[in-house]
């Protein structure tokens, strides 16, 4: 058996060689990058050019690459050569890249792009990349504004108003459906500006392999309530007669948010109640009566909100096809449907059982059986609504409340019901104890990633007993390397977790367009300032989607290559690591009661993995993708 020390030494040597070779390649190959040669990392003197960058190298508005991705520029040496761009992908997935227009002088331009496909299966989506100014003075592209071809505009972009802008970037998505014909496709991008024309040949190799329809990890995007929709779509609110919050227009927008995440291989959650139990009406059926006479009086708002999501019809026009949302929060909280007034008394059980029982019956009658309905408690004592923590329990006596709710839920559900009620708990400090004590009660775990990293094998153990296990964190800000968002999906897979939750993914800040705060709480934007009536995606969301589809394809090879082998290859390529290195040792503090842990102790316990990812480079996922494509090439 190879010693850990030797493994580490080899790993370091490989990393050194990789770095050295990368620098060497960069020095030799720089003239080949871009139409007229030159490094994509540093803008050249202004000239008219049309060039492409791989998705992991985000462009800046001056013909260069954003600082966070710049060091990975050498990895792009083979991406574009001799005015020709080579792409490859499996079927049922996207091939994506940045297409950049640079003009010699400020002025108008026309961009076009075609790809020959006699079968008419392959589709091209074009998005204009918005350059967000940061307080640092840097510009990062993130929001993607849908554009149609041929596209006409000018530099500097009159809307983006970036001083000195010489280059406009476009995110190109080439959608290759599962029934596309494998083989070589070719096309061309063209630019006309100031009497000059430029062209870039595009070659796409479509492998026979098909990305499975089911994602290997669920990338979840969380949100709270729906007031933010009104704030981000003020014109839609003004244009809506009556109460916007109960209007068809609001439901259309909610469904649109679900669609954009679904199309990007993600899940969308909206929590419909507050920390003291206030339920927003459309997230729950209306109730009447109390105690033994409490019952559901009206499903109207709930069904308008959830019906198309739960029967899948909200997704009928999507590329992924109609299917029910896989997960959704229930409105159940300590104050709904039963009033906390009766807690510990027969009246609480009566109200809970009556109403939740009616819900189960309604869902069953509607055949809403494709969704996991989550009983989830989000409240914390610090928000003064209740006497116990539903979210992130730290004080073990709070677990008694979970046990009682588990009993109540079991009492409600008829044996063999096809409706999927799950008891979800979001756990951090106390997760190790909860895994034990709430076995058979909680069936869906959303775990703090830092603490879960101490418990190697826990996700596998939970999966094996039939539970769902996700971990949570937040979207990386745009100033992190482009690959940072791919680490989240990869980590879930390496850990045997089934998903990741972006705790807040729809909050871009008051003015993301001209006063951007980094995007750490959003992966989508309102399209309203562009005259659109729907949310629009981001570069980070696209990169995440592509990573998920490629990870799903990679996982599909486990029967042939073995899961552990695939994990080893992926982690090695991602950051010269091993799957074991993605875990931290269980620290001594884990033997103390969680309420005695200090932040500094917890920080120290996460130090090994923090160091491992501190120097992540933008090309990390690209190397994994190359491996996946290597496997796909071998698949007949």
């Amino acid at each position: 058996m190879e010693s850990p020390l030797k493994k580490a030494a080899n790993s370091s040597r490989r990393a050194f060689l990789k770095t050295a070779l990368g620098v060497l390649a960069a020095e030799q190959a720089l003239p080949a990058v871009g139409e007229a040669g030159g490094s994509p990392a540093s803008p050249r003197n202004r000239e008219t050019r049309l060039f492409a960058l791989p998705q992991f190298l985000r462009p800046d508005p001056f013909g260069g690459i954003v600082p966070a991705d710049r060091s990975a520029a050498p990895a792009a040496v083979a991406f574009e050569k001799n005015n020709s761009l080579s792409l490859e992908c499996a079927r049922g997935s996207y091939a994506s890249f940045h297409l950049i227009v640079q003009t010699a002088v400020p002025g108008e331009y026309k961009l076009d792009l075609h790809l020959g496909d006699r079968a008419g299966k392959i589709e091209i989506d074009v998005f204009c990349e918005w350059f967000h100014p940061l307080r640092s003075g840097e510009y990062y592209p993130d929001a993607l504004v849908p554009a149609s071809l041929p596209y006409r505009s000018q530099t500097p972009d009159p809307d983006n108003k970036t001083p000195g802008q010489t280059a406009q970037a476009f995110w190109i998505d080439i959608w290759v459906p599962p029934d596309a014909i494998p083989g070589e496709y070719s096309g061309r991008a063209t630019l006309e500006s100031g009497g000059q024309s430029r062209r870039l040949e595009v070659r796409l190799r479509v492998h026979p392999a098909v990305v499975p329809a089911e994602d290997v990890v669920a990338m979840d995007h969380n949100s709270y309530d729906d007031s933010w929709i009104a704030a981000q779509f003020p014109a839609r609110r003004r244009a809506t007669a009556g109460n916007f919050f109960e209007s068809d227009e609001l439901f259309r927008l909610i469904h649109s948010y679900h669609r954009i995440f679904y199309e990007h291989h993600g899940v969308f959650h909206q929590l419909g109640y507050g920390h003291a139990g206030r339920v927003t009406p459309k997230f729950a059926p209306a109730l009447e009566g109390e105690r033994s006479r409490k019952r559901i009086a009206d499903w109207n708002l709930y069904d308008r909100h959830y019906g198309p999501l739960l029967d899948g019809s909200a997704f009928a026009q999507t590329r992924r096809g109609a299917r029910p949302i896989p997960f959704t929060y229930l409105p159940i909280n300590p104050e709904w449907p039963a009033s906390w007034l009766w807690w510990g008394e027969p009246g609480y059980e009566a109200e809970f059982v009556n109403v939740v029982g009616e819900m189960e019956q309604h869902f069953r009658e509607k055949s809403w059986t494709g969704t996991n309905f989550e009983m989830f408690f989000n409240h914390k004592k610090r928000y003064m609504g209740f006497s116990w923590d539903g979210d992130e329990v730290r004080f073990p006596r709070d677990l008694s409340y979970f046990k009682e709710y588990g009993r109540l839920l079991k009492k409600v559900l008829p044996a063999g019901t096809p409706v999927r009620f799950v008891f979800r708990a979001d756990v951090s400090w106390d997760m190790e104890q909860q895994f034990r004590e709430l076995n058979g009660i909680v069936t869906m775990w959303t775990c703090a990633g830092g603490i879960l990293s101490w418990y190697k094998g826990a996700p596998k153990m939970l999966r094996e007993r039939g539970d769902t296990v996700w971990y949570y964190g937040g979207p990386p800000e745009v100033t992190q390397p482009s690959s940072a968002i791919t680490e989240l999906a990869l980590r879930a897979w390496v850990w045997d977790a089934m998903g990741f939750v972006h705790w807040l993914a729809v909050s871009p800040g008051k003015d993301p367009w001209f006063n951007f705060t980094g995007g750490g709480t959003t992966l989508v934007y309102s399209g309203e300032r562009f005259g659109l009536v729907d949310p629009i995606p981001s570069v980070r969301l696209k990169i995440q989607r592509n990573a998920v589809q490629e990870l799903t394809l990679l996982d599909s090879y486990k029967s042939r290559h073995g899961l552990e082998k695939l994990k080893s290859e992926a982690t090695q390529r991602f950051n010269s690591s091993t799957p074991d290195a993605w875990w931290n040792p269980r620290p001594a503090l884990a033997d103390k009661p969680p309420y005695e842990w200090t932040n500094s102790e917890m920080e120290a316990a996460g130090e090994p993995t923090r160091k491992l990812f501190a120097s992540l480079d933008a090309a990390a996922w690209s190397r994994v993708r190359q491996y996946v494509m290597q496997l796909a090439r071998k698949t007949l």
Partner: protein
Amino acid sequence: MTENPGNASEQVEQELDHIARVAAVMIDGDACRRIVTPRALEYMFKIDPQDRFLAGDNYDVNDAEYNTVKKTLIRLSRLAPFACDVNLWMPIPGHPDKIQVVIRNAHELSQFWVFGALYQDLFPPMKTVLETGQRVTVKQTPGMISVLAPVYDSLGSVAGLVEVVAHSSPSAHEEKM
């Protein structure tokens, strides 16, 4: 009981004042003092630049006292024929210029609480209640009315106060942004 029946603001105020009077008699100030644990109070004002959630992460309550008082608050709120909350506010030992909301309720109404705040600067109307035992009506937030009333302990001292709060008119019930 979720709809304000359309009473004039004065009628809403009268109802709230009535509840506040009853609350001053019904709520057990000694039990209120036992809700927040000594540990939570110890951490409440600790500052650690490396741990900005130190106080919140260590916030804890004695649930028996909490639930007993909360149930009384809920019962009081049900005296109103419209959506109403009765919130408990308590002074903090050793910090006479501060106040904290200790129990909020289902409609999540308050003219004073700021989301996430464990404690806040003592509001002048609350100071008046704590010092004089008088009920005070507050209409500082458009569309809302609060009546503040004292909570007494077994020795007759003012232990804290309740905020009896509701929307002043039905139009204010549209969901807020």
